Each structure stands twice: as structure tokens, then as C-alpha cells.
């Protein structure tokens, strides 16, 4: 299944759209900065206004870059999950990795969040947002290992799906218990984290996120062929030479890296993982993952950049959490897509 000219045209079109969305995201914000000023910040920084520079380079640019990384990572993760489990409703959180990250964060903010513990941890030198990120990574990583271990023993993917959902439920129950016994400050902190935010990732954090997401995307690309074979089901895939265990391990690793890291740095962001693969399939009318993976990256990025632009509520001083916007925009999109499908069978 090669990239037809049709696909190539669409891919370039999407690239242009991506550039536009990126620029749009950079120009939107509380402080009005003209496009000319933005270009000046990048191309002749000496002549640019320092406050404008700080805002563009220090606030909006990292946020846009985070949106690019999260958009790519979550949509490719969703694509992999939908193919592996042959379930059109799957998204990267289905393995429970996102719930594991939330568990780590809740452990720090709610349960072990007593001031004495935090004070003690500060003495160790880990503080601030790094603590939250580290806790989320530990949570996500543990869940990933658990899922991998179980995947070796389970015969088929439906069982894996159920296990993933069960892990998600257990972690959420634990988090609820902690929330019940916490004081309002802690609960509000956790709630705010749970709303998701693209704005808090800067400097060293952005670099680490970029590295992990790129690794995840590379592994995903390598699994493109495996995913194609899995489209016919596990028996056929096996008869074509695919080792089910190996395929599952690679796909789970890739998705966990992507979903886990993005959740650790940005909080849980929903809907992109479910909606974007469907949009990609609809636009490119193909099932070949060689095309779908880059397509998902582009579409996911564009969508998340647009959501971020809307989240700024141009003109006002408040910013809505990104999770709300992705659902508000994503859900109607999927419904519109479904209405345009001619049959129920093809997805």
C-alpha cells in the first residue's frame, strides 16, 4: 500500500494547514501582538519589544510546541489502540496508563500530600513541578509494566482490553478515596491538574517531553507494518509471519510512552486519541498505517492547536482548561463524520 498521489496532495495540504494553525496559536492571547511583531521576534530579536519577546518565546511558543507534541502523540497512540483492539472507541488511555499517571500525581497531591512529607521531599532536592512529573512517570511506568506482564499471559486482545479498563477503574477508585479524605486545597490542586494544561511545560521539561514523544513516534512508525497485518485479525496476522506477542509488546510500549509522558507533563487530555484516527481514515480513505500515522500526527496537531487557540478565549483574561475544549470541538466533529459515512460497517 503505497502513498498515492491523492494522499500526497492531502498530506501537503495538511502541512500548510499546520503552519497556519501554529501561527494562529502564536498570535492569540490576552496581549495583542501583531503578526509582524511575531516575525520580528523570530528573525530580528534585537529590534523586538522585550515584553513581546518574553510572551512569544517564553509563553506562547512552548505552549504551541507542547500542543504539537501532544497532538502527535495522543493521536498516534489512539490509532494504535484502535487497530490493536479492533475497537473504534479505543483511545490511548484504554490500557490504564493515563490512570496510572493520575494515580502517581494523586499520591503526591492528596495522600502523601501532607505537609510533612512534602517538606521532607523538598529536603531531598526534588521540588515543584518536577515532583509531580516524576510521580506521574512512576505511575504510568508501573502500569505499563503491569500491562506488559499481563499481555504475555493473556491469549487474546479482548482480555487485554478488559484488563486495561479494570486497571483504570481501580486507580480511579483509589484516587477517589484520597480525594474524599483531603482538604479542599489539595482537592482543588488535583482537580486543576486533572483539567489538563498545555501551558506549564517549559525549558528542560519541554525538551524531555520532546525526546520521549519522538521515541514513541519512532517505535510507532516501526510498528506500522505490524498494525497493517493486525487489520485482518490475529490468526491471519500470525499466518503472515507476525508474532502476536512481539507485536503487542511493541505497540503497548509505544502507546504507553506517548500517553504516559504526555499525561505526566500536561495532565490528562482526552478526545484527541479517539477522534483523530477516525478523521484521518475519513480524509485519506485508507487503512494503511504508513499513511495513517503521519496523517494522524498532522491532524492531531492541527486540532490541538485550534483547541488551544479557542481555549485562550481571545480578548478575555481567562483560559479554559484544554480538556473542555477538546471535548466541545471533538465530539461534534466525530458526529458529523459519522453522519457522512454511507454504511455502518466501514470505520
Amino acid at each position: 500500500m503505497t502513498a498515492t498521489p491523492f494522499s500526497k496532495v492531502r498530506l501537503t495540504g495538511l502541512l500548510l494547514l499546520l503552519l497556519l494553525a501554529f501561527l494562529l496559536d502564536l498570535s492569540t492571547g490576552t496581549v495583542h501582538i501583531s503578526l509582524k511583531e511575531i516575525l520580528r521576534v523570530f528573525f530580528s530579536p534585537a529590534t523586538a519589544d522585550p515584553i513581546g519577546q518574553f510572551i512569544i518565546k517564553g509563553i506562547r511558543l512552548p505552549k504551541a510546541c507542547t500542543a504539537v507534541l501532544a497532538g502527535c502523540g495522543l493521536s498516534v497512540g489512539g490509532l494504535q489502540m484502535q487497530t490493536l483492539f479492533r475497537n473504534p472507541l479505543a483511545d490511548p488511555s484504554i490500557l490504564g496508563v493515563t490512570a496510572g499517571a493520575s494515580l502517581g500525581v494523586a499520591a503526591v497531591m492528596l495522600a502523601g500530600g501532607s505537609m510533612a512529607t512534602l517538606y521532607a521531599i523538598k529536603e531531598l532536592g526534588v521540588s515543584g513541578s518536577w515532583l509531580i512529573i516524576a510521580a506521574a512517570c512512576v505511575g504510568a511506568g508501573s502500569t505499563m509494566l503491569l500491562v506488559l506482564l499481563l499481555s504475555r499471559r493473556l491469549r487474546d486482545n479482548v482480555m487485554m482490553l478488559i484488563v486495561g479498563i479494570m486497571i483504570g477503574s481501580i486507580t480511579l477508585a483509589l484516587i477517589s478515596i484520597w480525594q474524599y479524605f483531603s482538604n479542599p486545597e489539595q482537592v482543588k490542586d488535583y482537580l486543576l491538574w486533572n483539567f489538563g494544561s498545555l501551558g506549564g511545560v517549559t525549558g528542560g521539561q519541554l525538551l524531555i517531553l520532546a525526546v520521549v514523544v519522538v521515541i514513541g513516534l519512532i517505535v510507532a512508525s516501526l510498528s506500522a507494518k505490524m498494525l497493517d497485518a493486525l487489520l485482518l485479525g490475529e490468526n491471519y496476522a500470525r499466518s503472515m509471519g507476525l508474532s502476536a506477542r512481539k507485536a503487542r509488546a511493541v505497540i503497548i510500549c509505544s502507546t504507553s510512552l506517548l500517553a504516559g509522558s504526555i499525561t505526566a507533563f500536561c495532565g490528562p487530555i482526552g478526545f484527541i486519541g479517539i477522534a483523530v484516527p477516525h478523521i484521518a481514515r475519513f480524509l485519506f480513505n485508507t487503512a494503511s498505517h504508513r499513511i495513517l500515522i503521519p496523517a494522524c500526527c498532522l491532524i492531531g496537531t492541527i486540532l490541538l492547536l485550534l483547541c488551544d487557540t479557542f481555549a485562550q478565549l481571545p480578548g478575555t483574561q481567562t483560559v479554559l482548561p484544554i480538556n473542555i475544549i477538546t471535548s466541545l470541538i471533538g465530539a461534534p466533529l466525530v458526529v458529523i463524520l459519522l453522519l457522512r459515512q454511507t454504511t455502518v460497517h466501514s470505520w
Partner: protein
Amino acid sequence: MVSAATSLLNARDLQTGYRSGAKRIIVANALPELQLQAGQLICLLGPNGSGKSTLLRTLGGLQPPLGGVIHIEGMDRWTPATLARKISLVLTDRVSGNNLTVDSLVALGRYPWSGWLGGLNATDRASIEWAMKATGIGSLRDRKIHTLSDGQSQKVMLARALAQDTPILMLDEPTAHLDLPSRILLMRLLHRLARETRKAILLSTHELDLALQVADEVWLLQSGGQLRSGAPEDLVLNGSFESAFAGEEVAFDKGSGNFLIYTPQDKPIRVTGEGLTLFWTRRALRRAGFEPVATASLHIHAEERDGRPVWLMEQQRETREFDSIQKLLQAIS
């Protein structure tokens, strides 16, 4: 394309079955030595529950044997990747809900040969084209598979297996869900492919009739797990078919090569006549429960008048004439 008279697959002391936890559930035990030769079409027959699917899946590499050794082109160990270049399968699994076009699906057959990311070169495309031509689905190339009929999609799955370009091809009940003309066409196609491509083709089926006509060899699995193999005619003549399918209500008739449904034959009748009309009259009477007895008081004579069959019934010096078997049977039942 493989050279003649080569044993491509050889299985000895095979035990097929399942592992459920620590338990071993054996499906077939006393299997003789099985061989697949190049250019041969082998049909695997047997009643339901005899373990046809299990045997096929075991030979095809989808599940491990509980015992015994399988040699494929000299190898007795393989990875899924190397096996994929030797054996391709057509299964009963439903393949749908994935937005694939016919071309893409057939192209998937090249999986064991294509590059890292699934890229196809000229050899790959040549195989795909040949496979689509051999199965006659060239005109369906850009159709989505969920829009095809059962017969068409079965051909597509076959094309995919052909594109995989393996010396051995195995099919699990390929004629299920097909109407009669499609079944015949598929069996004919497989027969021709075996000859032309020198592949070894193994298929399991319930189509006794068609199998008897096209198979070079038949493997007959019986309910106890025993397998008799040989040319179909040998198996008919030595009574294997009869014993394999023997049952209370059903029997295999050596003479016609058909299954006969028993009906109690308790009414004596004498039948005379000639040719095709006599043959079919006898069948009808048998169905109605009549047994041919030379001395019966009821006599049916079948003959032709002016090119049309006519039946004369004689009973106790009365003679009546009928122009159809249906009216005849209504009269005598």
C-alpha cells in the same frame, strides 16, 4: 512455483489438540504419516467434531501440536516469519470493519516479503497482479471489501493467500456460505491452480461430492480421531467412506457416490421400464417408501411415448395412466 513430486510437508506421529492450563485435550491421536506433495490438491473430509479444523490449524502453524514432528521443506523448526514464506492460509475468520480496499487486502499478502515499513517493490506488485488475475477479481480492485458478496470476498482472501507466494496453501472450509455455482467454481479454480502453479493445496470441506471430483488425495478423518488417506476412489471402494459417515439415518452409497437418506421401505412394488425415466422413477419410489420386489401385486411401468415419459400403473387387473411422477405417487400412496 515448485518442482514436481517434492514432499513439501511431512508430519509424523502427529497429535493435535489443545492445552488448557495444565491439561492436554487431545483431539486426534493415531494419525498416520501425512504428506503434502507439490501440485496436489488434498481434501480433508470428515464429520463435524472430528477435528478437521484443529488438524488444519496445527499443520498451518496457528497452534502447536501436542506431539509429533512436522517437517516443512526440510525444516522442523521455524519462526512465524519463516513459516509465512512457506504456508499461506485462507480461514473462516471474518475480515470486516477495517475500511480496506480489495487491492490493499491482496497487497497484505506480501507481508512476509515487503520492506520495513511495508513498502512494495516490482516483484511484490507482480505477485499481486497475478493473484488478482488468477482469481478473476481484477475488476473489483478499488472496491471496499465490505461491499462485496460472499463469493467475491472469498476470492479476495484466496488472492491474498496466492499473493503470499508460498509453496503450500491451506484453506479451512472455503466453500461455506457460498451458493452452489460459486462452490463449484472455487473448487475448479483450486484444482487448476494446484496443477498450474505446482503448489500443494490442502483444504477442508463438507463438499463430499465436489471433493470426490477434484481431489488428488483425500484425508478422511473419523470421529475417533483416526485418519485414512488415499485417492478418493480408493477410499470409496475400500469402504472407508461408508464407515466414516455411517449413521442411523444416513448412509453413503458406493454406487452413486451419494448419501442416501433412509426411509423405511415396507411397501412392495414391481418396477419395469428403461433408461433415465426408469432410474428416476426408482428413486422417487424409494423416497416414497417402496421396495422393489419382483412378485409384487402393484406394478409400475415407465416408458416413453412421443418423447414424453408416461407411467402405467397396474393393480389387480386395473390400469391407469399418469403423465407425472407426482400424480403417480399421489395415486399409490
